[in-house]
């Protein structure tokens, strides 16, 4: 699977291969030490964060709570005479 940053796709593939192997061989078998892919993850992360900034993708917006707070849009008041 590609990355949003074209230049990150190769780094992502290397990391994904490492992760999938770790997930199957280590994590599912009860070994929680994830340091084996840490270096590949770091390099890939730097690339992807840069690509996200360039494409103006921001996660903060979606993490905000809106429903149930005062930021929630209210329905317009109903006109009693109609």
């Amino acid at each position, binding site marked *: *699977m*590609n*990355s*949003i940053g074209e230049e*990150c796709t190769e780094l*992502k593939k290397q*990391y994904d291969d490492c*992760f*999938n192997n770790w*997930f*199957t061989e280590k*994590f*599912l078998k*009860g070994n*929680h030490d*994830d340091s084996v892919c840490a270096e590949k*993850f770091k390099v*890939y*992360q730097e690339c*992807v*964060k840069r690509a*996200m900034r360039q494409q103006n*993708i*921001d*996660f903060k*917006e*979606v*993490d905000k709570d809106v429903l149930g707070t005062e930021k929630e*849009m209210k329905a317009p008041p109903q006109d009693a005479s109609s």
Partner: protein
Amino acid sequence: MKIWTSEHTFNHPWETVAQAAWRKYPNPMNPAVIGTDVVERKVVNGVLHTHRLVSSKWYFPNWAQALIGTAKICYASEKSEVNPSQRQMTLKTSNLTFCRYIAVDETVRYTPHPTDSEKTLLTQEAVVTVQGVPLSSYMEDLLTNKISLNAGKGRQAIEWVIGKLDTEIKEFASSACKSTDELLSQTKKSFDDITSTARRSMDDISSKAKRSLDDIEKFAKDYYIKYWRSMHDAANDNNKDNLPIGYLISAVVTAE
């Protein structure tokens, strides 16, 4: 707001399905998904937490693009937890691109089947909300239909990935391949059906909207002419020959 739920049983143990879930993309059933990126990942107390950015290409009808913009690449935020000791995997996805108008929140859970631990139960729910744009219930229906369709494709995709994993290991998949082809052509067919149905109702809405616009225009014209005439007559009656046009307009606007 529409809530949509579904359940499905995989004839594979939870561990196999969890592995396949990470390798779900790319697959031929969800060609719309063009990228997945991990933005955060850590193991806390034996639970793997992952935050991913999922990019997909959506095709909207022209009228919808006028309302929500022409953005064709959409981004979604997917947060997941994998607990191997309890054999639980949960993924929560919400869209980023249409935050202002459309919110799609989807939750997918993979757990061992309660009566057969060698099988895996998938439960899935989606909440669609559309606010601030007209035709919202119509658009909700359109999106809910799309989610149902995609959910089916997602299940096939997991099976497809499991098939691929098996091939890599054991080199067998010709029978799976055949059924994948059948599923693909079925999926294609139902997608075509939905597209043509949607197009038909869209044409219907357009012509209705056009008709009511014409009605409004005609009504407004009649209304204006009627009041302008009556005010003009009234002005003449009172010998106020040089009434300013503003007077006439405000009389029309305030008239009951």
